[in-house]
């Protein structure tokens, strides 16, 4: 292994991780400085829900495609979302396995799993790029950051797919690119929309607490009363 690859796998990743954590810390600190809107009203609704239940439902929404009309009516989009995010988990996990637990990759099934996830995520990434460019609604709301983040992730998936076997016998090119991209990704994420997951627990909890207090979450689609009178 060349010094450059060793540096990219270790020192560079560590620096990138520290930078990411620092910016995340600053972001959260900035976010928490905004005053929290207080809700004083007594609860509304049938009384079978509350802020905690609403928040739990709201946070779990993402794993309940039936809960929202937008995901219920677009199962293919939802499947893409799942694959894409599993790809992120796989590609990140790989960046820790290669330097700190390379022995794990002797398991061909683990390599196949990582390649399966990053490979399909890469395909989804391509589909999303096409959608972002060709769908007039998505194009109209897209920023340069949206386009760049998507291209960055899609390329990263491709190189994660190639790096997964951890085999440099044919050259270090793929491996080096994968680690350089990972480091760049870690440093870029806190400044980009990819950091949305940082806000997700907050936005969903706040909405869920408010809607739980008001009896809106969990959303009802069936009668909650008996026509008995």
């Amino acid at each position, binding site marked *: 292994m060349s010094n450059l690859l060793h540096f990219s796998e270790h020192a560079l990743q560590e620096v990138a991780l520290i930078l990411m954590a620092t910016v995340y810390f600053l972001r959260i600190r900035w*976010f928490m400085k905004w005053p*929290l809107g207080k809700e*004083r009203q007594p609860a*509304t609704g049938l009384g079978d829900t509350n802020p905690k239940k609403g928040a739990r439902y709201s946070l779990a929404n993402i794993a309940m495609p039936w809960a929202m009309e937008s995901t219920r009516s677009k199962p293919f989009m939802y499947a893409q979302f799942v694959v894409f995010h599993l790809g992120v988990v796989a590609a990140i996990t790989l960046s820790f396995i290669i330097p700190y637990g390379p022995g794990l990759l002797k398991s061909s099934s683990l390599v196949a799993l990582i390649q399966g996830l990053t490979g399909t995520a890469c395909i989804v990434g391509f589909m999303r790029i096409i959608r972002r460019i060709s769908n007039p609604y998505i194009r109209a*709301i897209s920023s*340069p950051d949206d386009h760049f983040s998507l291209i960055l992730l899609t390329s990263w998936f491709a190189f994660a797919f190639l790096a997964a076997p951890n085999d440099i016998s044919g050259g270090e090119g793929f491996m080096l690119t994968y680690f350089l991209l990972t480091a760049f990704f870690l440093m870029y994420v806190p400044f980009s929309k990819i950091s949305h997951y940082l806000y997700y627990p907050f*936005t969903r909890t706040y909405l869920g607490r408010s809607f739980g207090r008001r*009896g*809106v979450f969990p959303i009802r*689609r069936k009668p909650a009363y008996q026509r008995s009178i």
Partner: protein
Amino acid sequence: MNTEKNKRSYKAQKVIDRMGQKLTRQMVGSLTACVHCGMCTDSCHYVLANPGDPTFAPAYKADKIRKLFKQHYDWTGKVFPKWVKAGSVYTDEELQELKDIVFGKCTNCRRCTVNCPMGVDLATFNRMARGLLCHVGIMPEGVEYVAKEQWEIGNQMGVLKEDYIETVEWQEEELQSEMEDPTAKIPIDKPDSNIVYVINPREIKHDPRSILDAAKIFYAAGEDYTMPSEGWDMTNFGLFNGDDELGGAVAGRVYDKVEELRGKKLVISECGHGYRSTRCEGPNWAKKDITFDAESSVITMLEYIKQGKIKVDKTKNPGSYTFHDSCNNARSCGLTEEPRELLSLVVEDFREMYPNRAENYCCTGGGGAMSMAEYRPSRLKSAKIKADQLAATGTKTVVTSCHNCVDGLTDLIGHYKLGMDVTQLVNLVANALVIDDIVEENKKKYAEKEEVSSGSAQ
């Protein structure tokens, strides 16, 4: 020195400065978390009614507000403005354009909110943006007019106290005649009552029948209630124009009056935004914890039937009915089941509309849209979605628990020639009341009294 501030109009600078004072953490979360995934796009009735036009998409509209936040309050926008589509406003014309979006292209219905995987609540920061513009006098004329009436006269239709009392007294006479009881009352300012009943000024101006219907129900239930002579308007234009001070003042008037009268419970007549404002948002705006119970009259009527205080006969309401959920009731207050339960008790043929409850489409008159004449054509165009929903039920009458929705639905039903009627639960419950025995008894009682008094006169 040609600084950034110098390039900006006075009003534009005010809008930007005030934004910083109005942002809450919940709003900042919504302004930061959008990933531009587009999942909310076709949850909006404006989008569905204007296919191919992305400027109606919730995220597109949100970005017109978000860009200001990014440019002035989020450091990613300060460092890389173009990269994250941050931007500012410089001229009054740009503020006018923003006005056409926040007032004219969104009814704050929150349908996109419940469909956003990230929990972005556009309606809340759209309301904030409305408030920023109103603060510098940029708003639709109707909004300005109504807000002024509510600030100055105390209700949003400019009803004078004497007109209010006269109308209530007129309905009292009607009640006496319908119930054959010359002593029947619609009490005003009666202290220590069980219920303080507040209404929408539309009931005084255009729909006094609703006051009579409510009075009949209270009479039949033997309720100890009163209507207040002031602080009787439960509607609140502060919800629509984003002015928390107005919202707090209007809700505060109602709360103060209930406390002054030592009422045990505040009952709010059927109105989506009125219920949301008085029951939910009012304490936040007025910064006051309310010390009495408060509920929608829908719940009161339902309880009367359940407790046997009134009897109803659903055969008195023949025909087919569907129910339209007001956005404010359903998506902001969770009032979805009680109106259905009540409706099923007073009509024989109730057919559900789809989608419904918190997924229902706006009547398109929400968010104060009925007072913005300049946007009527685009409002009615967007109403096609609601019109299709109504037509698909195959019913003759749509029931709703909101005066605003009554107007919105009536307008679109006329425009799309659906030939349907619009009514409220209070009208159906009053019509279904089994009161013949009470009326007969009253007839006898007062006939006897008359005989006695004419006998003693002889």
